[in-house]
């Protein structure tokens, strides 16, 4: 993987595509299974398909499909999807310093693609490159690659996935998708390492809490731990 900045705005887009491609390859089975889940439910195929480009988030897509299939009230579905996606606000805080001098149009465009994978690759790159245009090209390469791969995988799942999903090892892929980004992020400094360890411990402790609240709580505890211990 190459994430070396300073190669110019034109090649930065290609670098973003190249850096995101192996990640997309590993995430495609997850998108496939989400599409297959929609196909196997009472949710119309068009709705399952539309969830990928519009929602662009695995956990929220799954929650919405499950709740639609179960006949939950629309307001409850929207509120639950928002709760599950609350962590995305924090990713906005990560990227906001790097986008301060960008236009509002760029901020709105780029915000649409804020997920773990884009932030994990874009934030370190932006911290190392002084050229905002180059970073924007790099982020666009990341975002477009992930979005296209995700939509394609979900569409394949909706169309052909009901049988094939049984043989895709979804659980280990999900774990590894986060491990692959957690370790480099935790290696940044001592505070980051302690934030990661505290958040992981809290996530296991609060795993029983409903609709992602345990996850959000664990993230907040991790951030607090990082701030507390990095001050010492």
């Amino acid at each position, binding site marked *: 993987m190459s994430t070396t900045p300073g190669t110019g705005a034109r090649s930065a887009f290609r670098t973003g595509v190249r850096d995101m491609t192996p990640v997309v390859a590993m995430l495609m089975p997850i998108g496939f299974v989400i599409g297959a889940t929609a196909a196997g439910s009472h949710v119309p195929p068009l709705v399952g398909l539309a969830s990928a480009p519009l929602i662009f988030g695995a956990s929220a897509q799954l929650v919405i499909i499950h709740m639609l299939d179960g006949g939950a009230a*629309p307001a409850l579905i929207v509120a639950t999807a928002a709760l599950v996606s609350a962590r995305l606000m924090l990713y906005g*805080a990560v990227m*906001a*310093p790097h986008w301060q001098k960008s236009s509002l149009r760029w901020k709105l465009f780029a915000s649409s693609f804020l997920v773990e994978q884009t932030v994990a690759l874009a934030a370190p790159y932006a911290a190392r490159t002084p050229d905002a245009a180059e970073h924007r090209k790099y982020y666009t390469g990341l975002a477009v690659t992930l979005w296209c791969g995700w939509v394609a995988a979900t569409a394949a799942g909706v169309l052909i996935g009901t049988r094939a999903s049984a043989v895709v090892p979804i659980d280990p892929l999900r774990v590894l998708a986060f491990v692959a980004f957690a370790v480099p992020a935790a290696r940044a400094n001592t505070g980051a390492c302690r934030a990661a360890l505290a958040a992981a411990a809290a996530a296991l402790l609060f795993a029983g809490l409903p609709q992602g609240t345990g996850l959000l709580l664990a993230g907040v505890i991790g951030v607090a731990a*990082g701030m507390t211990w990095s001050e010492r």
Partner: protein
Amino acid sequence: MSALAVVVASAAVIFFMRSSLVVAFGARPLPAGVRRASSFVLPAMMSALAAGALVPAQGGRPDASLVIVAVVGVLASLRFRSIAWPFVAGLAAYGLLSVTHL
């Protein structure tokens, strides 16, 4: 309210959440505390998501085979400093565990 309308409404709310802090801090510098906190968001959330994925959806204790996969993935990431190797090593470990029924 149709199912498609629910998806569109959810997407609108999620988009608002994604863009709110980016736009809110668009023209003025981030408060020092927020800037410092934001540097810990990524390691904290990624680790929380990884640890949370070890526990079955219905709750309970972490799945032992997933814990082994995660440990192998962490070791591969530490050793090779690459995004791809944790997947390769972790899936190999999972395949081995499936074959041996450990």
